[in-house]
């Protein structure tokens, strides 16, 4: 055996240490572990997610044909701070018609990096909407109850519950000293300690004294929202990916509909 390797052999050895199939798969880079996951995934689930995305009401408004110019990636905030590119999203969606695994390669983590700012849509000369495509892929991931989606939504459960049952998402009681946003610093602690008195003194009647909702929402309004969530399939989506929240909201919706029946 020779004591040294040629430059070409060294390069081949180094490349051999990489997951070459993942790196080169379809010519479209992404997160390599997601590419590996897609190789192990159930082909039926991959096809189902692909079909779900391509039959979405907004799909043909969001996807035209990618000319690979990269304008979208150039203005993308997630591209600057994460391993994400909207051009890749559109390219993978484009080729997923024949290769559904390309779309599946993005569902575990890739799509969740998107900031949903829609700068990509604003600058696309072909009128694609990569941010919109990400939103409908997220929808499909939630509907299919993927394990990775459940993990992604875990820290979100309080917010999902709050929105579904009050009609408002961000509320003053999130300023409590043990809840979200601790990185807002001493100011947050100061606000938390005076929350009730500050809130009581807000000079708008619909806001004053309300801490568990963003504003005072009529109970009948909340019932209408719960009916919409039930009838539009939102509660089923919640049950797929955030089961505890889905179960609680379903009970609330059933009570709302019973109240309506009594009223009628």
């Amino acid at each position, binding site marked *: 055996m020779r004591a040294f390797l040629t430059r070409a052999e060294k390069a081949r050895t180094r490349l051999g240490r990489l997951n070459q199939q993942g790196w080169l798969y379809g010519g479209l880079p992404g997160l390599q572990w997601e590419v590996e996951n897609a190789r192990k995934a159930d082909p039926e689930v991959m096809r189902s997610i692909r079909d779900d995305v391509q039959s979405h009401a907004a799909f043909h408004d969001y996807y035209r044909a990618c000319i690979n110019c990269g304008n979208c990636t150039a203005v993308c905030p997630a591209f600057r701070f994460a391993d994400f590119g909207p051009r890749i999203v559109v390219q993978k969606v484009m080729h997923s018609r024949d290769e559904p695994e390309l779309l599946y390669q993005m569902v575990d983590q890739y799509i969740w990096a998107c900031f949903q700012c829609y700068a990509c849509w604003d600058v696309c000369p072909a009128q694609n909407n990569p941010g919109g495509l990400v939103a409908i892929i997220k929808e499909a991931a939630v509907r299919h109850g993927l394990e990775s989606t459940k993990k992604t939504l875990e820290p979100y459960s309080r917010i999902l519950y709050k929105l579904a049952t009050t009609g408002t998402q961000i509320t003053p009681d999130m300023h409590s000293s043990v809840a979200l946003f601790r990185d807002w610093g001493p100011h947050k602690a100061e606000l938390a300690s005076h929350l009730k008195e500050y809130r009581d003194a807000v000079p*708008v009647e619909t806001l004053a004294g309300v801490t568990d909702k963003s504003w005072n929402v009529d109970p009948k309004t909340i019932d209408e929202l719960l009916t919409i969530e039930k*009838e539009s399939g939102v509660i089923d989506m919640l049950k797929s990916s955030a089961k505890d929240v889905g179960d609680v909201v379903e009970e609330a919706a059933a009570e709302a509909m019973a109240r*309506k029946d009594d009223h009628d």
Partner: protein
Amino acid sequence: MTEPSASGLFDRAKFASNARLTAGTTEEYLRMLERMRELEKRGELCLHHVKDTYQPTTVRTLSRREKRIPTVDLWQHKSCGQCGHIPGYVTALYWIMAELGVPFVDDTNQTSCTAWNYYGSGTSNPVALSAVFVRNMHVAWQKDAYPLIHCGTSYGDYKEVRYLLVMNDELRERVRTILQKIGRDIVIPEELVHYSEWLHVIRDRLAERRKLDLSKIKVVVHSACHCYKMMSEDFTYDDAILDGLRPAPITSVALALGAQIADYSNWYDCCGFGFRHILTEREMSRSFAYFRKIQPIVRETQADVLLTHDTGCVTTLDKSQVVPLAHGYKETVPVLSDAQFAALAMGAHPFIVCQVHWHVADWRPLLQKMGIDAEKAWNEYREYVENVKRGMKPNFIRSPPRTHA
């Protein structure tokens, strides 16, 4: 000859792309508006028109279409993030309306648009988003008040779902079936109007009531992505403001109030909010907001205040300054909404009305430069809070009598 700057070249490239290359999108948008009127004629939906009784003012949009902005009898489509975390946003807006004698309706029969959650978590769908939109719009129509949308994301989401409702018959019928179960039907506003477009059209009236000298105040502006990047054709531009190349609201109000406007290189970047990131991956939002927005803004402009017109932008740009400052970074700038800034200029109380104490980045130097005695005002606020604690009713800001209830 001077070399064009990088940001100048970008401006030109963006203008060119909006003018020519995205013509298809603009045409489709205009076609949607035509179809909306056809559907109204066929009785398939009810359009909430910007009637003359709403005393509208006409602006031009990016597509150069004329858009009528109602100025009175406004149904306040509140923002969950503003009302929950930045109450001065809505109190300042109502205070301005009361000062100008603009009647409005502040309804408890309103839900949030639910779109922040949708963009963040994917746990909704177009049928639900459309039904929520139309439910709220139906309430406004019943009250004969024109919806004024406070949140940039609600405004962007409503533009998207209005497009789907008009262009997709199947979706429209599914939404109609759901609405019938709650005793409502499809009502769509003829124009979707963001509150900052309203502030833009009444800016001269704001300026007439200005009490503070703002000529030494240097303002930088961040426009919200969901206002002008989602369905970009429909947001307000004005040839007299920034040569008509960037959105007119906020900048036009600051200029009308006599402040200076400063420009910065990363103006097109988002704030870093990210919908999901601001809630569950905050390091990402914080780093983006500080290193792509706050730091370059302060280094390039030494601005006194950063103004914006959306829930997420105020939150992210303001709250993301805490951790970097704790790590020894020096750049900081107060963040306010255009409504709060205008109300302060018109003499509103900084704490009772503008609720500035809910903001993190140090606003004291700004108040001082505006000629406001922050310490005195804070003592007045504390006294007011103590009185409320003892049972006094807050000084509620109420709508003037409506012109046609």
